[in-house]
């Protein structure tokens, strides 16, 4: 069955810089939106283990599989550790690190979209909004746009 999703504005992109997360409530569902190195990802805020608020956990890296006595730290900023028992999840895919094929948390699509109101005011404040043309306006780029969650 095709799934229809709705768009929900989370915040302005500049309010969610790399390394940060924001937890939002949409239709009674708690969802964590993460900015990982400039890309946005969203995970359901429920850990499949004992239902802890997963997205409140530490954003970190992890050790890659290696031989005994070797430690290779990598993926900094791409892993969230459940605040309770520390299970690690890949923020990019929702998959758990210890059992990626069976255990995962739901992910959602996130896009960055232009803020129409700003775009309009940036493009032509006087003619479209009818406001005082002396109001200071800013050029708008997509980077400064809105973080939109598709649920």
């Amino acid at each position, binding site marked *: 069955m095709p799934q229809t999703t709705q768009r929900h504005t989370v915040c302005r992109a500049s309010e969610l810089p790399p390394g940060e997360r924001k937890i939002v409530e949409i239709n009674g569902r708690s969802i964590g939106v993460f900015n990982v190195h400039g890309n946005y990802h969203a995970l359901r805020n429920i850990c499949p*283990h*004992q*239902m*802890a*608020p997963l997205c*409140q*956990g*530490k954003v970190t890296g992890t050790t890659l599989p290696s031989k005994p006595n070797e430690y290779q730290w990598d993926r900094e900023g791409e892993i969230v*550790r459940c*605040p*309770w*028992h*520390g299970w690690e999840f890949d923020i990019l895919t929702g998959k758990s690190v210890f059992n990626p094929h069976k255990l995962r948390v739901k992910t959602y699509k996130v896009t960055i979209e232009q803020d129409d109101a700003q775009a309009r005011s940036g493009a032509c404040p006087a003619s479209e909004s009818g406001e005082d043309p002396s109001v200071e306006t800013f050029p708008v780029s997509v980077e400064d746009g809105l973080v939109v969650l598709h649920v």
Partner: protein
Amino acid sequence: MTTTTAPTAASADAADSGKQLSLIDCDVHNAFSSPDEIARYLPKYFRQRGLSLPGRAGFSSPLGVARADAVPDEGGKPGSSIAKMREQLIDAYNMDYVILTGGGILSCGVHAEADYGAAVARAYNEWFAEKWLDADPRMLGSLLVAPNNPAEAVKEIRRIGGHERLVQVIMTSATRTALGDRFYWPIYEAACEMGMPVAVHPGAESTGIANTFAPGFPASYFEWHSNLSQNYMGQVSSLISRGVFCEFPQLKFVCIEGGIGWAPHLMWRLDKNWKSLRATTPWLTRPPSEYLVEHIRFTTQPIEEPEKKDHLLQILDMVHAEKTVMFSSDYPHWDNDCPVHGLPKLPEPLKQRIMWQNAAELYNLKPR
């Protein structure tokens, strides 16, 4: 199993009042935020050095010890805020009672300077009395003692053991010599006099004078934590075989956070060996497993999570969980179990025994 104990007044009350109790949490950690909070209760000579407890071997948990979401709103250590504990645990799950077991302090029991260790235990109890004892009618306390100083432990038990809100004696499960040894018997005697169970809790293994587990030193927090059960296995074996429960027939002994999965093995092995070697422990007049079921109580957290949930139900059956197992969350520690999602679905009568009845009987708790 042939042993039956007559129902106590508490169990009769609890049964009469039926559904009024529904959830008792037997391991909740109340923490102090700064060592000075405890140190100021030390006697002058020891106070000058502040609180100085034996440390771990240097390995630590990458998760920390506490749950990342349990930091109090006003800051400070998880477990140090009465309000946060109410919000995240007691009110959140509508708990009837929680048994507070302290936090970051048990290792006073493996301090090489046994008098200092005992002084710390006493200072902790004083602090507890001031901050927690009357904080909430649902919070009950544990009286801390340092087992490597039985004489002082006995004094402390006699000093405050009669307080109705202190429901058990607690000490570290790490010891210099196994807990069945006569060295510790004065502690058990005093606890029985006061009508209190004795509980042990992990934390001080591989620190201080209790240096390691039987096979040798663990090399990581992972190995350390996974080995804790092995220590409990040895302690229970020692308590039973050295005759502690023959000498103190009223004594109940609570094994907190030590696991349960190993218990069937120990029960069966003790019974098998007893049939052949009974003459070496003539005081044991019944199969050792019967002493275990009558005197030992286990808490659930960290509950074993086998691949097939049914296997855990079978183990609970094997250890007579309807008598021996009590729910615990271990809030706010990282390995806590959620009261709602932590255990697999249990048959209703067993669920009631584990979630509250066994604890209500052990600690004599009635609906408020």
